C-alpha cells in the first residue's frame, strides 16, 4: 500500500460491473429505478442502455478508498455523475479507479480520484477526505 503522503499516487483498482450486480444493488439500496434494469425503459427516457446506479459507481469509489487507506474513517465523500456507466446484457463494464493524495492536514488526508469506464471519465471531481489513524 502507498503511504498517504501528499502527492502519493494510489494504485489503480478495476471493478467489473454486471447486470446482476445492479439487481443486487437495487435490492440492497432500495433504488429500483428501471433504467438500471430494463433496456427498453432506459431507451425510452433517452439513455444509451441500462446504466449503473451512479451510487453504485460511487460505492466502488468508496471501496477503493477503503483499500488505499486501510479502512480509514471517511469524513467527506463527493462526486458529480458526468457520464453513465453503460452495462451490457452480456459480460460487464469495467470501472477503473485511480487516485492521488492531494493534501494531508489536521489529521485528515484528501484524496482526488479519477474514475473512468472505457477511457471516459464517469465521475466528475470525485474526492474523499479520510481521518488518519
Amino acid at each position, binding site marked *: 500500500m502507498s503511504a498517504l503522503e501528499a502527492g502519493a499516487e494510489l494504485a489503480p483498482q478495476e*471493478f467489473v460491473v454486471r447486470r446482476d*450486480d445492479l439487481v*443486487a*444493488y437495487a*435490492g*440492497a*439500496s*432500495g*433504488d*429500483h*429505478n*428501471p*433504467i438500471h434494469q430494463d433496456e427498453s*425503459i432506459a431507451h*425510452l*427516457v*433517452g*439513455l444509451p442502455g441500462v*446504466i449503473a*446506479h*451512479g*451510487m*453504485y459507481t*460511487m*460505492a*466502488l469509489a*468508496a*471501496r477503493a*478508498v*477503503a*483499500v488505499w487507506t486501510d*479502512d480509514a*474513517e*471517511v*469524513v*467527506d*465523500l*463527493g*462526486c*458529480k*455523475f458526468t457520464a*453513465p456507466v453503460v452495462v451490457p446484457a452480456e459480460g460487464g463494464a469495467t470501472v477503473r479507479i485511480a487516485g492521488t493524495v492531494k493534501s494531508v492536514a489536521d489529521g485528515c488526508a484528501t484524496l482526488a480520484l479519477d474514475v473512468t469506464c472505457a477511457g471516459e471519465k464517469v465521475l*466528475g471531481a470525485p474526492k*474523499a477526505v479520510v481521518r488518519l489513524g
Partner: protein
Amino acid sequence: MPIDASLVGREFPPTAPFLVTEAEVASFAAATGSGSRRVPATFPVVVTFRALLEFLEAERVELARIVHGDQKFSYERPVVVGDELTATLTVTGVRQIEGTDILRTTSAITDADGALVCTAGATIVHRGEA
C-alpha cells in the same frame, strides 16, 4: 411536468426511522463488494433514497425520468450498527434547462437522539418528456 420552482426552501417530512442492523449492512456491503469492517461510506443512501422517493411521490415525478447529477456525504461521525437513522430532505434549488429540471437537495441524516450524523447533498436531474 416541470418541477415547481416554488419548492425551493421547502423541508419535507422526515423519513420513518431506519434501524441499521448487521444484516442491512452486510447486504449493502455484499452488493457493493465492500470488505470494510466499517459501515460503507455510501450506506446512508438507504435513507436518503427513501426521502427522495417520498419527495417524488409527493410531487408526482416519475422515478424512471430522473438521474443522479451529483452526491456528497459530509459526516459528523461514522454510521454504526444500532443507529436509527432518519433523513429530512430540503429542496435548495430548482432550475430548468431545455425541458430538464435540475433539483438541488440536502438531506440531514439524524440519529434517534436527533443529533446530526451526516449531511447528504444531491442534485437530481429530471428529464422531461420530449
